[in-house]
């Protein structure tokens, strides 16, 4: 249970760092896009590590996290580049 909290604190740090960096790049959409992609990749990696530690890492779970990351990136592209 304690490990679960630690994992979610790590996730919180990843996401908060992403938001902070994103907001710091207000004048550069390319950097914002890279920050979004990096945060998404970090999230997918976090998900894989989390489920590996929980003992329920399956290909289906990896695909799910990857698609959630892909949705975030395509939404970011939609807002940034249209």
């Amino acid at each position, binding site marked *: 249970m304690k490990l679960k909290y630690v994992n979610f604190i790590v996730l919180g740090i990843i996401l908060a760092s992403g938001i902070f960096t994103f907001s710091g790049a207000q004048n550069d959409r390319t950097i914002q896009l890279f920050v979004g992609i990096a945060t998404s990749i970090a999230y997918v990696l*976090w998900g894989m590590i*989390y489920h590996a530690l929980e003992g329920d890492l399956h290909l289906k779970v990896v695909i799910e996290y990857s698609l959630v990351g892909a949705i975030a990136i395509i939404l970011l592209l939609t807002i940034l*580049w249209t």
Partner: protein
Amino acid sequence: MHQFLKHFFLPHHSNNHRAKALHIDSLLCYVLLFAIFNLGIRIVHREFPNVLGYATDIRVDALLASTNAERASNGLSALKLNGALSQAAAAKAQDMFANDYWAHNSPQGKTPWSFIVGSGYKYTIAGENLAKNFSTSGGVVSAWMASPTHRENIVKPGYQDVGFAVVNGTLNGEETTLVVQMFGAGGAPIAEVPPVKTVIPESAASSEKPIVAEVPQLGEQTAEEIVPVAKSVDVVASPVAPISSVLSNAFSAVTKTPMFNIPTVTRDIAFMFIGLIIGVLIIDGLVVSRKKIVRVAGHNMAHILFFVAFFIALTMVRRGVLL
């Protein structure tokens, strides 16, 4: 219909106890749909810019009024709209479109000052603010005031004159509305300013229905035509009429009112989608937790946190950019 909604939004034996909206194939569909949506918006915008486009209302008179309002609130005198500086700003904007760059200095090494000198304005101090892709004049000036370096130009006591150009065109393959603001002090009498030959970028000249006034282009204006108006401009009391006389039609405003504004449409759809997904994740998580269902799937709370973080980030996206 009821069964379909239940199947799509609630964990149920029919969907293997995971809302269909969260299944891998559904997630893949969202990615593809948004890719098609992106492509569709570009195509519709290109074919029907008056239906789907970028709503813009940026006018030099409003920019000048906002700039001087900011100066007044800082106890400073109003800047006078200067025809030569406006010509310099227009030439700079044209150069940016012609050479496809977004910078204070051109790739060929031309500085902002070379445009000012080229317009005949003899300065002791000068400055330049740039902005692109804002939708309103107030938004441009507010963003400049929020940026310390741009604010410094606007509230610098030493400046006496200001010039503007607002031009629509294509920069780096993207439809762009450029705003160039040039400051100066110590300029020579405008009567001595030679006319500057300028050519409107093809993309700017052919923009949807952007351009306002009906005055001759800058390149067609003579110094003598500019002089009396510029000298007599009282920007605080009556900014509109004199300004339209000083500035070229092509550079004094960009106004576009498409039926649907692309940034509004994309944001509304993206935010609604994220809200829907977060809602489904919450309901799915609650039902599964209450029924103590064991399943192989991603962690709903993690997905929710991730989407909330992206929602926050997306609200920070500003189309307008400063330099």
